[in-house]
């Protein structure tokens, strides 16, 4: 059922492997993409507005303007990702035809389908999806996602939700590894995830695809924190281009992801930065304004 050994799946996961240890940055135009590439981003994510602006301005957030994505693709040589709305398989087909390197089926955009995510397996282009816990991650992988990232709380500048999500996923994986085979069906029921994937995680102690972190990373220290907790790379959304000096901050976050275990280098990366983006207290946000509860 799950074709981990299929050529297509291996090629999709292969690109995610190449992005490990790096930083994927949200950009809304070619100039920002160039700044990101020059600062050492390993990929850029093209979107219409960064999450902090989507949060502020409201309205329906859709796939980015095609002309803008094309210009970004023509400007940088690193991989270009783009976001499609949850369940909007036509936006995804359009992005695939355009030739983007990865699609993020993202809760940051307004969902197009409140029940179903995109059936991602048949696409040639790989997908990344957000998750808050292991069950959600495995449901996305069952649909064909080749990379998982924590949802965190996009556009908040607050790392607390990303920490909660990466800790939850890692803890749930660890728990599975010490359980007996006879407990797996019950675990699959609890996690609301396919049995085969639950068994795979129990055997290997990790996800069958790379596990990255996103949602609220605003400082070099935030990036190193989620890496130390087990993320293999980070996405930074509003954190770069909503700060006072994007180029310096972008470079600092890249250095932090690379040297996440080295306090001296983290100190160096944290020096001489301008102001970080303003942060939001998640507990003060009404439920209806949370992005992480989109998708299931």
């Amino acid at each position: 059922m799950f074709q981990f050994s299929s050529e297509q799946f291996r090629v999709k996961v292969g690109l995610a492997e190449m992005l490990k240890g790096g930083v994927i940055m949200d950009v809304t135009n070619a100039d920002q993409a160039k700044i990101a590439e020059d600062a050492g981003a390993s990929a850029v994510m093209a979107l219409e507005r960064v999450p902090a602006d989507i949060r502020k301005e409201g309205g329906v957030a859709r796939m980015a303007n095609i002309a803008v994505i094309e210009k970004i693709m023509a400007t940088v040589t690193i991989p270009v990702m783009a976001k499609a709305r949850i369940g909007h398989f036509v936006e995804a087909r359009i992005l695939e035809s355009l030739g983007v390197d990865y699609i993020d089926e993202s809760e940051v955009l307004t969902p197009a389908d409140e029940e179903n995510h995109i059936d991602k397996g048949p696409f040639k282009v790989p997908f990344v999806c957000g998750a808050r816990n292991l069950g959600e991650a495995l449901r996305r992988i069952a649909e064909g996602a080749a990379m998982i990232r924590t949802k965190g709380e996009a556009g908040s500048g607050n790392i607390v939700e990303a920490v909660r999500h990466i800790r939850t996923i890692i803890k749930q994986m660890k728990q599975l590894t010490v359980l007996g085979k006879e407990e797996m069906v019950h675990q699959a029921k609890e996690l609301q995830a396919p049995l085969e994937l639950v068994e795979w995680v129990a055997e290997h102690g990790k996800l069958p695809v790379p596990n990255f972190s996103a949602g609220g990373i605003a400082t070099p220290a935030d990036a190193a924190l989620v890496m130390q907790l087990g993320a293999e790379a980070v996405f930074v959304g509003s954190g770069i281009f909503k700060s006072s000096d994007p180029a310096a901050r972008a470079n600092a976050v890249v250095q932090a992801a690379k040297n996440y275990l080295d306090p001296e280098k983290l100190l160096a990366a944290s020096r001489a930065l301008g102001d970080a983006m303003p942060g939001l207290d998640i507990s003060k946000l009404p439920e209806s304004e949370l992005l992480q509860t989109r998708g299931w």
Partner: protein
Amino acid sequence: MKQVGVLALQGDFAAHGAAIERAGARAVFVRDREQFAQIDGLVIPGGESTTMLKLLHYDNLMEPLAAFGREKPVFGTCAGAILIARNVFHPTQESLGLMDIGVERNAYGRQIDSRVVEIAVEPEFESRTAPGKLEAVFIRAPIIRRVGPSAHVLAEYRGDPVLVEEGRHLVATFHPELTSDPRVHALFLEKL
């Protein structure tokens, strides 16, 4: 046991570390120039060559890396092959110039053109390792467009060289670290 460094600035360095250990050597993740003194050979992994180049400059590692390559074996896959080459184009990019080859970046297209294929190898590769075709994983791969007179092609795909050695150095435009076949890494360990 031989110690093989894996440049760990960005990319699939963890997969290379595991492949080195499977092939019978000890892997060391290299992020600082001081570490070059402790290793017998170095792997430059897959990843984004533009990104790695920026990071190498930021840490002032270009010169120590080139100096290491003048004395010890270096093996590069994909982005690593781009960094090892003498000339890089599409677009033009700086490189270490450890091997006399010319490489075109992202030459097959974008991610949707990535693929896994079985490739035939030169009999010499088989006699130095073990018989059988190689499974080659190409991810946004480059193409080696020029091979200098002292470089030596060990495998081709569609008429283009994909596994090339020159003296102590070795490059692959595909990712042997993403397969279970240890032969390419074993070949590199023979050079140490």
